[in-house]
């Protein structure tokens, strides 16, 4: 028997219910765990670390001046999700991404949703993420977010909530794939005991989604990276290799006759689809940031001429902006005429004076986030913050209220995790990846992140988070 710290009575633990008995879908895993010696498990964890180092799956931390790369800690206790819960998540994710794509098409064309008064036009059109270069441009299948990473958490009430939509260049899928490979290598017997839905076909689905995004016959697909200084470079190289396509940087591409070509040893080769892993503003120095050396001059002209597909499209950031997030349920009703299947976290928009005063009066209980922030930076978690931090945010909010939203502090569910003292509950989330092509497809699983510090609610790897393997059980 292992020493397992019990979760708090108020929260939701994925393995233990309120009475601290094992939830049925964790029973086979729990029994297996109890049959292993701590020495053997410790040995396996060391093995995993060594293997990850060898694969080179590392992550350079934003703001770490030494520029050191480090390993994201991997935890060997999986997050297990029963089949019927996944079915709900899958349906809800498909619905949500369909609405977000419809929204993006609409706001770059007729703006029906703005004219209907469902979302204040100003919030969309004066948004720094709205790209005028996209106005009136028709994209194949009207698709903007071919690859979406939707962050989902389970709250103390047991319900799943969408915390954030990531429609620009969502990362982390390589961890989903590598973590599964690692678990199968370390504990093959576990996969005999469990019917775990496979994830390893993700690169195949990604490639087919990218190929479907172009009207060209037999389109040439490339992965475009900002280069090896980027924190997700490993993933860019990994996905290109897994899909069997070229990994390119801006300098490997050029535009001629409004078409995009890559330089190859056999001469120029036309590129039809660019899976680009760099931000809009760096992609074409003749249209966006003039001093960017990472992009391709003339790319937007080729894009507007319909001669190349960018996945994701330019200008998707306006739909995953935290100030637009509160309207996603309305988008689902407006475009699909359906009720949302997944819950949104209640959100106060500090741009509205009445909501701002509520937020200012309750800073010690709320989470405050920057509208354009990401990666767990620039946020306040009221219940965990010091008086000084709260007062600092009060000043920030008063100075620029439109830059912030606030949400109740959600008690992310916990999952047992190996820590120094043994096994203890740690807060987790899940980022499934939604692929939109001719149909919408989701590999059953996702990036499962865990906040390794006791009590921490921030799962971002840049803030000391780790990852787990996420198991979706087959029905």
């Amino acid at each position, binding site marked *: 028997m292992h020493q397992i710290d019990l979760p708090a009575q108020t929260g939701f633990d994925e393995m233990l219910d309120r009475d601290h008995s094992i939830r049925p879908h964790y029973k086979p895993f729990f029994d297996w765990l109890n049959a292993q010696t701590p020495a053997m498990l410790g040995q396996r964890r060391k093995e995993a670390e060594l293997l990850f180092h060898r694969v080179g799956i590392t992550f350079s931390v934003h703001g770490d001046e030494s520029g050191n790369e480090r390993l994201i800690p991997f935890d060997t206790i999986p997050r297990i999700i029963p089949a019927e819960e996944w079915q709900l998540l899958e349906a809800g994710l498909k619905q949500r991404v369909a609405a977000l794509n419809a929204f993006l098409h609409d706001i770059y064309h007729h703006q029906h949703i703005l004219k209907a008064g469902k979302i204040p036009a100003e919030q969309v059109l004066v948004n720094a993420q*709205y790209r*005028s270069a996209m106005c009136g441009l028709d994209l194949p299948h009207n698709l903007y977010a071919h690859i979406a990473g939707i962050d989902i958490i389970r709250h103390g009430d047991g319900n799943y909530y969408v915390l954030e939509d990531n429609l620009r260049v969502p990362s982390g899928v390589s961890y989903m794939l590598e973590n599964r490979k690692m678990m199968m290598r370390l504990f093959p017997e576990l996969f005999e005991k469990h019917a775990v839905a496979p994830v390893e076909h993700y690169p195949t689905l990604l490639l087919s989604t990218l190929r479907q995004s172009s009207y060209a016959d037999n389109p040439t697909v490339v992965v475009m990276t900002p280069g090896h200084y980027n924190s997700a470079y490993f993933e860019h190289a990994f996905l290109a290799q897994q899909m069997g396509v070229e990994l390119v940087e801006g300098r490997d591409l050029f535009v001629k006759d409004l078409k995009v070509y890559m330089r190859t040893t056999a001469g120029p080769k036309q590129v039809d689809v660019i899976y680009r892993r760099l931000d809009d503003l760096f992609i074409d120095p003749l249209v966006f940031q003039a001093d960017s050396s990472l992009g391709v*001059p*003339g790319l937007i002209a080729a894009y*507007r001429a319909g001669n190349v597909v960018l996945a994701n499209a330019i200008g998707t950031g306006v739909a995953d902006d935290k100030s637009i997030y509160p309207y996603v349920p309305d988008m689902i009703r407006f475009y699909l005429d359906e009720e949302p299947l997944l819950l949104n976290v209640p959100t106060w928009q500090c741009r509205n004076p009445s909501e701002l005063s509520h937020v200012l009066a309750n800073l010690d209980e709320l989470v405050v986030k920057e509208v354009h922030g990401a990666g767990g930076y620039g946020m306040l978690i009221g219940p965990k913050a010091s008086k000084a931090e709260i007062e600092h945010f009060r000043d920030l909010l008063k100075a620029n209220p439109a830059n912030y939203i606030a949400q109740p502090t959600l008690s992310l569910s916990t999952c047992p995790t190996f820590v120094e003292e043994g096994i203890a509950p740690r807060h987790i989330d899940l980022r499934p990846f939604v692929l939109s092509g001719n149909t919408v497809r989701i590999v059953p699983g996702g990036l499962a992140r865990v906040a390794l510090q006791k009590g921490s609610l921030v799962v971002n790897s840049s803030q000391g988070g780790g990852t787990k393997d996420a198991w979706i059980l087959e029905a």
Partner: protein
Amino acid sequence: MHLEIHHETIYRYDTPVSHSVQLLRLSPRRDPDQTTVHWQLEMPGTTDLTIDAYGNEQHVLTLDQPVTEIRIVAQGVVETRPPIPQRDVIPALVFRQATSLTTADDAIKAFAHNYQRLIEKHGRHGLMDLMADLLDHMPYTPGQTDASTPAQESFAQRLGVCQDHAHVFIAVCRYLGIPARYVSGYLYTENDHHVASHAWVEALTDGAWYAFDVSNACIPDERYVRLAIGLDYLDACPVRGLRRGGGAETMVSHTRVRSILHFQQHQQQQQQQ
């Protein structure tokens, strides 16, 4: 009015440029109050015509053979009529997005506050007052700023040329919640005091897009030919390019705009010759 335009730009490089791509916005816009009678672009390499999101004609010029000189000539005749208020091309609110060249700092904001009520009350006429006062604040002064000078810098220096005037006027408008866009084009003048290659502003007021030329403190009329509109200089300038190699660059640009008084007669004469 019939305006004959000749616009020549020559780039010279110390060492050969191996590869370059330029976006050229050198064809007059097809707007209701201006008609292109004929127009011709001369340049090396291959070009392709596209229309950008603002409805500007845009040529993409690619050079992949080494050159030490790039010469671009745009010339032709444009018929202009008394201006009519322009319509929306893309949603007007987009022209409230501040760009790095048009961001209002505290000084510009303080200046803008003086005009807020005036503009709310008198719309276009309030903006005309703003235009006149802005030119007083920052008199036309060539040679002190360049294409990359942001609004706050020229405003603080209290000087600038047409693009600086346009950027500050735009920054004030957007800060006050008024959509405003940058216009680049040609201006016919009887004297050569101002360069014929010009920039001014259109602002959405009284329900339509009206033009304001801060550098001349006047309302644009038939002497103005629109080439391109955009969020700022970078978005609408006649030539924006990037090159590989070439060392130091020198650029010489010359623009001539002549008025053809009796156009029909002129054409007949030309045909007879």
